[in-house]
């Protein structure tokens, strides 16, 4: 019972906090040339995909669809962008996971890869609908790389707190 409720609760809290958190960061970060997008929701989803999901369950993809849509409603007003990007990439990560073992380095590698693909997908969609006209080389340097690094930092920071309960819940799932 608790397992059913706890992931939606964590994901909801992370989604809410990622909006409030930008107030905490020094404002020079927002004004400067670098654009850092907190994909914290996505990081939690990766944890779920790698350490919780079995080969026949699709919890991470399902949560990606639901909370991606909520993220779109609350923060961007354009429905489907985060929903599609997150769900697609989590689905790909879930596929790659089957070939690799679920340890820390695999997590790090898959996350870097996943955040990159997800953010590029968001960039592509926003470019097509005209929300941004950032040239690709500026995007890669000023947004993609800082975003990947900052989100990996978040991933490493929460690792000690999240890994044990996640593994435990994962083994309970049969």
């Amino acid at each position, binding site marked *: 019972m608790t397992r059913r409720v706890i992931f939606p609760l964590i994901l909801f809290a992370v989604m809410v906090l990622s*909006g409030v*958190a*930008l107030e905490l960061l020094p404002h020079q970060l927002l004004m400067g040339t670098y654009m850092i997008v907190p994909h914290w929701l996505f990081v939690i989803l990766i944890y779920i995909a790698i350490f919780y999901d079995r080969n026949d369950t699709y919890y991470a993809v399902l949560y990606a669809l639901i909370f991606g849509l909520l993220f779109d409603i*609350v923060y961007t*007003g354009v429905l489907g962008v985060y929903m599609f990007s997150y769900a697609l990439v989590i689905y790909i990560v879930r596929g790659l996971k089957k070939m690799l073992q679920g340890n820390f380095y695999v997590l790090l590698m898959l996350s870097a890869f996943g955040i990159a693909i997800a953010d590029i997908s968001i960039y592509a969609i926003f470019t097509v609908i005209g929300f941004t006209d950032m040239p690709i080389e500026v995007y890669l340097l000023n947004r993609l790389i800082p975003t990947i690094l900052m989100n990996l930092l978040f991933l490493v920071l929460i690792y000690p707190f999240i890994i044990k309960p996640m593994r435990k819940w994962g083994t309970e799932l049969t």
Partner: protein
Amino acid sequence: MNFFRSKKLFVILIGFIVLVVLIGYSLNSRGHLNFAEKIVSDAVGWVQNIAQAPVTFVTDIASNVSDFKTTYEENQVLREQLSQQKSMVYDLQKLEDENEELRSIIDMTETARDYEPIYATVIARSPEQWVDQVTINRGESDGVQENMVVRTAEGMIGKVLRTSKGTSTVQLLTGFDEFNRVSATVLREDDSDIFGMIEGFDEETEMLLFRIIEESEADIEEGDTVYSSELGGEFPAGITIGEVKEVVADQYGLTRIAMVEPAADLFDIRNVIVVNRSIDQPEDEEEGDDES
């Protein structure tokens, strides 16, 4: 195996179609939230309201410390300014009285300059920095409507884009484009004001782009202050937008664009005022005239 491969492809294709439909839907109904979206916004806004309290507490302490450092210098500057203002207060008072008297003679009580303020606090900023939106903790039930101007004490910061019951989303000036424009003006004596539109933000220089539509005899100069204008029909007049820093020709050389430095800090926003233009829209005004 082959069958499963094609099934996966099929699912992804359907997902793509859903994506296109959803984007098309949300771009068409821009500004109007549907029922479900409003519920979600309210629920998230409610939680953000709670989460934001400790965050504000911490950041306030940090900013208080940095405030202490600059207090002395600021005090000196403000003293100087205060002595200059004193003489202006007297003039202003006289002019205001006179203005009121004259207005009462011609039976005109409301102007486009009047507005009713709704005070609000920023509870979240969109993590996606391309959309430049913040969420405030006042919504429809407090009288906030779409397209109202949002300002801080320093000047305009944006306008209300979407509303739900208890929260609303504000489009910041930095995210303005051809679809989100503000009519603005530079005041000149002798009725030769300069009119134009704020229609964009230059990321590199961090300046607003003020496209000059109607040019008067007087040329726009560096240091001129740009105000909102009532001609857009939605906003009250006289809200400070920013200061002209540079005037350049646009890409076709037909009109000129003034680079305007925003008066308000668009990145450090905490307390805002939603401005409700108290004068009725033009249609209502005419009806009122007929009755009287």
